[in-house]
């Protein structure tokens, strides 16, 4: 399973970006499907951050390309919202903390299921 987190410079110690489509980077975490342990962490640039318009859709396209299942970040804008729904990527709307803190919360939620 892959979880993407909207971040500024990238990395798990970074703060969650306060915007979805124009977040500078996505920090992508690969989890073991069974144990939910972190297997790999890498940072990709968000093409939406450089887009004049259509930022949200470009951001979601990147997430689809990366085969992300869940994204953590602020509430997405109208176009990103529709694109996320169509692509089946789940959104956990969390801001105001570091990527790591948010990731741990989401992993806890997933373990309950």
């Amino acid at each position, binding site marked *: 399973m892959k979880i993407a987190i909207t971040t500024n410079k990238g990395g798990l110690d970074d703060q969650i970006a306060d915007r979805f489509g124009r977040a500078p980077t996505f920090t992508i975490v690969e989890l073991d499907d069974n144990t939910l342990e972190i297997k790999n962490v890498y940072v990709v640039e968000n093409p939406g951050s450089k*887009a004049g318009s259509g930022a949200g859709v470009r951001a979601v396209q990147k997430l689809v390309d990366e085969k992300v299942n869940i994204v953590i970040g*602020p509430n997405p804008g109208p176009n990103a919202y*529709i694109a996320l729904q169509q692509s089946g990527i789940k959104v956990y709307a969390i801001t105001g903390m570091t990527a790591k803190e948010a990731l741990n919360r989401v992993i806890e939620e997933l373990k309950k299921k």
Partner: protein
Amino acid sequence: MVSSISQLEIVIASGKGGVGKSTLASSLAILLAKKYYLIAVDADAEAPNLHIALGIDEWDIVEPYIEGRIAYINRDKCTDCGLCADACQFGAIEVRNGKYYVNKWICEGCYTCSFVCPVKAIFFERDIVAGHIYVKEKTIYGFPLVSSEITPGRPNSGKLVTEAKNKAKKIMGSKKGLILVDAAAGIGCQVISSIAGAHAVILVAEPTPSSLNDLKRIHKLAKHFGIPSMLVINKADISEKYREKILEYARRENIDYLGDIPYDENVPRSINTMKPLLEAYPDTEASKAIRRIAEKLVKIIDNISEWRLKHLPAKIEPFIPIIIKPGNNIVK
């Protein structure tokens, strides 16, 4: 000082134009700057005018904003076959004396012409100055102003607004403070960009049917981002019926009502003198009303976390897309 959220971002928006966003923004900025470290941002890149309300005619920093691309045809390679003109969806390719040229004002930089060109004669001019970001480090009222302006004909000012807001955050650095954003009218790209990432929205409405309609539209956008809203009714005495309708909407939607501003002929007079209302006519009825609104706002800002929890908008109803696949019936 600003509680719990160290850098607070409040946006003034209205949907409908001409209801008094910049008038309110300029006066509120002056009042709030006495209490907080404040930076004002004019996020109406298409028609910026907060600087006019604040009497600014010279900027300290002017930065070009680079965005987009424009096609051009290399005349040495072009065989004037006209395929590009047929392919262009925007009608941006013109024929002059049997030769093909790109009209810079119409070209959207979509690359289509370059894909169809059989001799690869179409190139792209990048580094297009699509706008500017302006900074006044200290207005005569003491706070900085960041403004943005898009070059006419250049599309998409959402990114420019983002950069203007980022500029304000950069000026603020690690200090605690308040960023007051004056958004554009409408609910387009730049307004979405103004609202995204904000902590609260001040909705300005006037008691008219069109303002109520546009208020609902802009509020839908704020709800979309999960941002709580406040309401100011400007020119409140022009229609009691619509004032009541707006208030009813606010009650239903959990929008915090900050107060009324009466219709006041000194408002247009103050705009004509390039002074905020509060400076030009401090004792006029509208100024008194704005002061009362600012007092309420200060109370909200000082308890912003609690206030946000209390006024968080209800989740918007999920959008169920209708997917049409070739050969299939419509599936919901």
